[in-house]
């Protein structure tokens, strides 16, 4: 008797779990329909520049921009802080051509370029750079402006 009662209870939990999964799936499908399944974005430009992957993190007193620059020559790295933006430019170690890809077949890619907009409290004039040469990754640390 106890066994059958336990089985019944398990069945109810199973039904609830399946119902929850179904609701979650329906909800995700609705979001997919409105937002698109995923944002497909091109990071190659016909002017020969590439957009690097970046990640911006915020702490209490600073912003940290992590930039992935594979195949970049970090000696040519140029970073400019102006208004509330940071502009990153860096040349590639070698030219890249992708002739089998007809959309960009006549383009030679030579440089990474990216402008990152930060909130108003970012003190972009005082940025610092840390390079991880073995990974071709850089970190740009931008302090927040001191507030009274």
């Amino acid at each position: 008797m106890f066994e059958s009662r336990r089985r019944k209870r398990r069945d109810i939990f199973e039904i609830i779990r399946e119902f929850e999964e179904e609701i979650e799936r329906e909800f995700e499908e609705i979001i997919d329909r409105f937002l698109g399944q995923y944002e497909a974005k091109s990071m190659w430009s016909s002017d020969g520049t590439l957009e690097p992957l970046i990640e911006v993190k915020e702490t209490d007193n600073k912003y940290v921009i992590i930039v992935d620059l594979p195949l970049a020559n970090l000696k040519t790295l140029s970073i400019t802080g102006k208004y509330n933006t940071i502009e990153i430019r860096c040349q590639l170690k070698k030219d890249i051509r992708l002739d089998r890809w007809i959309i960009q077949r006549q383009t030679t890619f030579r440089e990474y370029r990216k402008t990152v907009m930060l909130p108003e409290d970012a003190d972009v004039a005082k940025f610092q750079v840390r390079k991880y040469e073995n990974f071709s990754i850089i970190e740009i640390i931008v302090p927040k402006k001191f507030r009274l």
Partner: protein
Amino acid sequence: MEKLLSREPLYDILGVIMYYTEEYDGLTIFETKEIKLKTPSYLMLGLPDTGLVASISTSYIVDALKMEEVGGVDSYRYFPPITVIHNGEPKPPLRIFHKDNMLVMISEIPISPAAIHPIAFLIVDYARKKGIDHIVSPVGIGVPNRVNIEKPSVYWTSTSKEGEEIMEKLGIKKFQEGFIVGPYAIVLKEAKRKRVSNIVLFAEAFVEFPDPAAAVEVLNVLSKMLNVQINLKPLLEKAEEIRLKTRELMLSTKKVLDRLRKGYERQLPLMYV
């Protein structure tokens, strides 16, 4: 859930032979060639995830072992309306490759949140029907201090005793505590429920950037596990180029992962307290 299972070769409207077709909750899985799997058989998953570890490692295996394309998965309901063209031929976004005792499933697109459950269920169901001995999931586990790690570590978990025995012999550490979020999490749960062996390999990886170095460590383990020689030198040499060429897939995968609350993976589970 409607299902159509065919044992005899069929022809689709383009005249392509279909040896196996199955409709599964809005997804269609099909085989275009007859698959004779040797034992012990493995189904490796290459679904985009943290650091693209699975995508990079499985596409490298397919290339290095010259595996044959034998089928795919498509969906009008869950996939965007795209056709991938490779070597002049239209392909589905998720393809299946075969050689000897191995099947590899590779997706060219991130699995959208709504598609995760049906795809995971399809994978486990397909593995059962094919008599697969072990589903192998190479998973990237995001570590915030990845730039300070020269050689990423690999951990494992398994849903079966047989899987545990294989992994214990290799002498790598078991994944003890933590969350996994995304398609591999559902495959793991579903495999456990359906009593299918699923070996998950977790490699420390960048969360937001492609990580071929983590894929190399996974391939090192896979090569010992499957007893197959895989020359990893070309992958190491091309690592930066792979990172450059997979930026877009990484970006769209990351957006999907963010929607899946991937931050859970960095949290400590309650039971550890």
